[in-house]
């Protein structure tokens, strides 16, 4: 597994919550959407996607439901729960603060 695009610890959860906030999706669709929205910069391996989803589910941030897809297959669809939405807001704020702080640091002029 190549490391450069490895996600900062904990940010995967944030991304997943955000994606699911837009619409309920199944695992495969989530992996596609991740690549799509991040312009292939963020590569989440399939391997780490599912444990992360299951963890979020067990935490109660997202809930899962088996539904039939357009092409008539049964698939597990994840959607955000109410506490999950609150959690997302909080985490997004945190992330915003962190990102600003880090970019400030990175942009410091070297002397």
């Amino acid at each position: 597994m190549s490391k450069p695009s490895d996600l900062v610890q904990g940010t995967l959860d944030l991304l997943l919550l955000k994606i699911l906030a837009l619409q309920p999706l199944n695992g495969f669709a989530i992996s596609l959407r991740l690549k799509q929205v991040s312009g292939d910069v963020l590569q989440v391996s399939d391997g780490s996607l599912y444990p992360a989803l299951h963890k979020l589910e067990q935490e109660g941030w997202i809930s899962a439901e088996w539904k039939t897809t357009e092409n008539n297959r049964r698939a597990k669809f994840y959607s955000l729960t109410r506490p999950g939405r609150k959690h997302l807001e909080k985490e997004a704020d945190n992330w915003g603060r962190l990102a600003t702080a880090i970019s400030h640091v990175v942009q410091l002029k070297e002397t």
Partner: protein
Amino acid sequence: MRPERWIYALPLRLRSLFHRTKADQELDDELGDHLELKTQQYISQGMASEEARRSAVLEMGGLEKRKEECRDARQVTWLQDLVQDIRYGLRILRKSPAVTVVIVVAIALGVGANTAIFSVVNGFLLRPLPVPSPEQIAVLAIQQKDAPVGSSGFSYPEFVDFREQASRAADIFGIVLGTVQFTANDQSQECSANYVSGNFFTALGLRPAAGRLFLPGEAEMPGQPLLVILGYGYWQRRFGGDPRAIGSPIHINGKTAAIIGVAPRQFQGMYSILETHVYLPMSAMIQEESASLFWENRDRRRILAFGRLKPGIGLREAQSSLDVVSARLARQYPATDKWFTLRAIPEKSARPIPYANNFFFAVSGLFLVLAALVLLLTCMNVENILLARGSARRREMAIRAALGAARARLVRQMLTESVLLAILGGGAGVLLGMCVGRWTSSIHLQSLPLHVNASFDWRVFAFAASSALLTGLVVGILPALRASAADVNSVLHEGGQRDSFGIHQSGFRNFLVVAQVAGSFTLLVVAGLFVRSLQKVQSFDLGFDPSHVLDVTMDPHQAGYDEPRAAAFYRELEPRVRSLPGVQSVSLASYVPMGGFPNSRQVSLEGHPTPPGRQAPGVLSNSVDPPYFQTMRIALLRGRVFTDSDDETAPRVAIINQTMAARFWPREDPIGKRFSMEGDTGPFMEVVGVTANGKYKTVGDDAEPFFFVPLAQNFASKLALQIRTLGPPESLAAPVKEQITQLAPDLAIADIETMNQLLTGAFGYLAFRLAATFAAALGVIGLILAVVGVYGVVSFAANQRTREMGIRMALGASSRDILHLVWLQGVRLVIVGIAVGSAAAGALTRGMAHVIAGISTSDPVAYITAGVLLAAVALFACYIPARRAMRVDPMVALRYE
């Protein structure tokens, strides 16, 4: 986690626990689905289907590993692991049923012995009084100079003074113990009674089970109607718990009385070992004593006092308040109140009765130590077995470790197994303990309402559970660590069953054997001491001949007879009984040896007035009629026995025993000397005879001063008719009863027992027999455990050395040499164990001096018997594996691997 999230999370947890297969199936489906979609995506991008599938799986990075991660996310794995461990553990236990049974039985014995002994101690000493805030209750004991705490009670005026003057610190209440004749529905029964002060129930904070209880101010006024409160147990037995008993007409000691209420169910009186049948007002005491004496005399000390400390008042503060009052009373009444101080003792520390110099604590402590020793032996034994099995399972553990099991996980699994064993054994142990407890509780004595409540409450269960779990962990941890620590590589390469036992480990196992032998030896010595003490006590010279004597105790006073009528009744009864067939002689006495507490009288010698500020010495006494010495076969050493002419009108006389003669008139002839029971001024009694010493209070007593006075000069209403018979004394019980009923139909017989039955009772051999029984049971358990342990280790070691034996034999060692080799190893361990055990036993038994009688704590017979027994059994246990080793065929042994 906030509650809202639980709405989503909880069903998932439950689902992963209880619908695990379904959850796993869905996980498979979900991941499978993903792989399929991914494969299709790659195919549509132009890959070959095989290649596409492979890429999809690769990207997942190990399908099974991912699944495991997803399962871990459920956070119930530890529980599932536990369930799995338990299942696996049970399977392992089933696989070797013999070993399992041995271990479970060992733990059951250990835990059972502990639980049984703890339940008895709990009933005696630990269970709090069943009243609200029991920790506030204190016993107020009088501390005299030169006398044990609590050897005397309070007089009523003193009691009232303390109650009033220390009322800021404590609510002081009191009781007088007694027995009464309780007549209802034309049936009379002897009952244990508490004469209580009016504030007894309110101070204790008790609520009636029915009716009402006494109120403060009630119960202490002379001449008020006789009100009765029943103990709950007595209410159940006598009236079947019928609420109509309240208000029904009854008679107490022949006087009309009214039941007004029933004490609460749990409460059986102030003493954990004494059941109270009825509670009477303290004013009812007057029937037994002349009124003015009881209410006014500061010397009539019959009240046992207790106090409920006021909220926020500690024992120290209460004590200092009481000290202030004692000092004040001592100044006010120097004649009576100067020679004592008062001590407040927490109720629990004053058990079982404040008189006792708490040898119960010593006995309880000793037996708890012995039980702990048994548990320790159990642990070592089971440890041994588990170690042996653990080494057999090192291979299994190594394979598991090679397959990726973490060490902590392996330890956990092994610990689960040992705890499972402990739970099984503990459960069986609790049942065993319950049986013993029930047996102990079932000992109801005929003559006394003594009762040990060894029932199981949460304390006992908590104790049993913790001792079982502790056992499980203690015995499990070492084998678990050891087995799981195995170096995977070396174990898997070893091949075969052989197990590389290091010197270190066999050293530890030898240590276990030595410890077990030592522990078992200690138990056997203690058991031996108790058994020897029982034997000694049973062979003690009682000073009288107990065979063929029937004791019939009755109290005409309780049926309402006054003194002349009671005397007339006895005068008529005696010749009637004497003329019954099979009767040798008949006599009357106010006290039967080993039948309760005899009267203690303060004795003053003529011409030797008691120095001021000192108490005249108390001496036990008995009022008897002339044929008494013949009936009891008490040896008269000097002088004469009483005759019919020693009556009310004759000069007062007394017969003393040897010890009294030696103590009061050393190097003088006691015959003709005079002493008084009523102070320095007399009237004096002349000593007319000296008897041999005997046992009076309990069979374990040391020689004690004692004197007899003629019944005619010292009448008592409650007397024992003692009958020496030709045949078995029991056969006289019915005809004697019949004679009594003919003469006095309304009189209840308090007690009818043969002297030998009485001797097995509470003041006789009972305590010695119980102690010997319990100690012997523990000793036997210890012996069994030690023998199993020794056998296990020696035979295991012999097995380990099979190859070595083969080589030795191949090189010319005879089978005798082999026998010696193996046997000597065991013998060495046993000898070291016994040596260590002697030291341990010596230390432990040092504190036993006052719980055994007739022998010293270093009784050689006990030590030698224990040593010989243990050595014989243990050496036999070593001999069996040694013999087996001797029979080893060298060829087989060498090919063994």
